[in-house]
């Protein structure tokens, strides 16, 4: 589970690592193919480092700010001052919004989406890649189409349907339903199944295995390496989603952390002793699980996986 490196399957997906090939020199050795002269290489690192600094600094600032007794927006405030460090902001925000409950709600929301996506996504992915049935082309086209429909257009009708007609307001089911099956994840599954030679399945059929048996004993074990990629990819959406759960949950006890933090920010932030510190502390708690998971499993977040998923 932790490091499922099936070479046969990952080989096709992990090819986004050209670092090895890029330094190959031409026969003459006179000029480098990719032009990796020292100056250009330094320039590359300078550009990338400036980029990385701009991308990471707000996160650093978030942590620093969440630990300050009093907000210090001056330049000196960007560096930790031991005299000004406190954990009080975390206690503060936790007394206003139940951080633990928020995390649990976010977890249930994301977990429900992941469960539905994995269970149903594997089935469709397999059917699209390995079976021939009427409507396959239409289904595949729909899957691509769904990814370009702006969700926000559907927001009002979905709200009417789910909150009013089905009475699913203030429920986990109502939160999960519109996101239940992540189409990008389905495409990743399909991509994996496409790499499995059809002959493997045909052989099993000749041996008399039923279609469900083939799915369960051959297809599912093969797709295991894709699982972590799909889980990670699917996790981002619901964990970070704001608008939909914001519309559908009015009851504070059911709100995912992103929603309760945003409500705190817009409504009651002004009443806290160190409002910015408290909000930043909440932001750290909201950001941490996703960022930590991402850093741990970043090698599964390979460009070609998602690239092929999006492109189809």
């Amino acid at each position, binding site marked *: 589970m932790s490091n499922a490196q099936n070479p046969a399957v990952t080989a096709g997906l992990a090819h986004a690592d050209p670092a090895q090939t890029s330094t190959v020199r031409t026969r003459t050795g006179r000029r480098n193919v990719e032009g990796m002269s020292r100056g250009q290489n330094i320039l590359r690192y300078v550009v990338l480092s400036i980029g990385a600094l701009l991308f990471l600094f707000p996160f650093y600032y978030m942590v620093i700010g969440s630990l300050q007794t009093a907000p210090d927006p001056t330049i000196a405030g960007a560096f930790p001052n031991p005299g000004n460090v406190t954990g009080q902001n975390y206690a503060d925000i936790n007394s206003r919004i139940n951080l633990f409950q928020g995390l649990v709600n976010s977890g249930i929301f994301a977990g429900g989406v992941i469960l539905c996506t994995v269970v149903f996504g594997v089935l469709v992915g397999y059917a699209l890649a390995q079976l021939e049935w009427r409507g396959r082309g239409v289904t595949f086209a729909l899957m691509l189409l769904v990814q370009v429909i*702006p969700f926000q257009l559907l927001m009002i009708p979905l709200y009417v349907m789910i909150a009013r007609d089905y009475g699913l307001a203030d429920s986990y089911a109502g939160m999960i339903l519109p996101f239940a099956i992540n189409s990008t994840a389905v495409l990743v599954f399909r991509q994996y199944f496409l790499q499995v030679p059809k002959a493997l399945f045909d052989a099993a059929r000749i041996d008399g295995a039923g279609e*469900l048996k083939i799915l369960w004993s051959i297809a599912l074990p093969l797709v295991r390496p894709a699982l972590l990629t799909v889980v990670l990819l699917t996790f981002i959406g619901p964990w970070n989603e*704001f608008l939909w759960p914001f519309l559908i949950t009015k009851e504070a006890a059911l709100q995912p952390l992103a929603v309760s933090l945003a409500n705190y920010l817009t409504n009651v932030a002004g009443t806290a002793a160190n409002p910015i510190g408290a909000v930043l502390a909440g932001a750290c708690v909201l950001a941490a699980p996703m960022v930590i998971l991402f850093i741990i499993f970043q090698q599964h977040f390979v460009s070609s996986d998602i690239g092929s998923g999006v492109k189809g």
Partner: protein
Amino acid sequence: MSSTVSSGSVTPSPAARPTRPGGGGPRRGRRGQLLGRNPLGLLLSAPYLLFVLLVFAYPLVFAFYMSFHDYFFAAPGAVVDRPFVGLANFQEVLSDPAIIRSFGNVGIFLLINVPLTVVLSLVLATALNKIVRARTFLRVSFYVPYVTASVAVVVVWLFLFSGNGLVNQILGPLAPDPAWLINPLLAMPTIAIFVTWKQMGFFILLYLAALQNVSDELYEAAATDGAGKIRMFFSITVPGVRPATVLVLLLATITGANLFTEPYLLTGGGGPNGASSSPVLIMYQRGIEQGEPGIAAAIGVILVIGVLILAFIQRKVAGGDES
């Protein structure tokens, strides 16, 4: 076709699958020609098709329906008359200066966000593609904003770009007054830059994937012919990743059209005075807060038509027969 079939079967049991007339029934060999060689595929896809039908197809039709009716919220199950009003909702939308302004704001957003996204993500992806050391660290640092919740990073930007925030402290006398997010001229550009920063990682990812498809031989040949680095970038890399560029343009445009969280939280609901409101924000205010779903649906329909037109133009301009 597929939707009518899928709506029939929700139960994931093969026995529950109704056999179609002429489908061969229990006959072996040429079974189920009507449903293809492996009718099981349809059964396996049924939950997904049902999901698409319920969450995309039906609401899409419903949105169009609402936009032509005087739709209002009523108690569930109550039978109420919601008269057909023709284009009245659209008329109201198009004559409301606040709504027009929100569409204009999206225009400003796209003009800043889209070119910035395409150029910066391609440059960073190209640079990232060729390095050996610190590759993972740099890659991860570019993706981190993308994987983090908007709500969390919005808070930091609020702090950074406030009146006496760090950005203004660094700029000193050059700091804009009023500050970024409460300045009518700068509120929308600041949001555009925030979203560019937030989404860049994903687009770098797409370009990195696309760069793997650009053949090294092209660069070799160009080097033999004496082409310089910059020439190679524009003559090989840029055309080589064109399909990805079409995709990036489309996705960035959709992101812009979907703008909600940032104006809602960064500028306190589209302030100052509507200078950073977005159509989706107004859809929320009119549709949910003020109970006029018909108006909100009409805004949504106009928004989607706008996105489709932009996508079509981008495809024509950026080229790429296939995406």
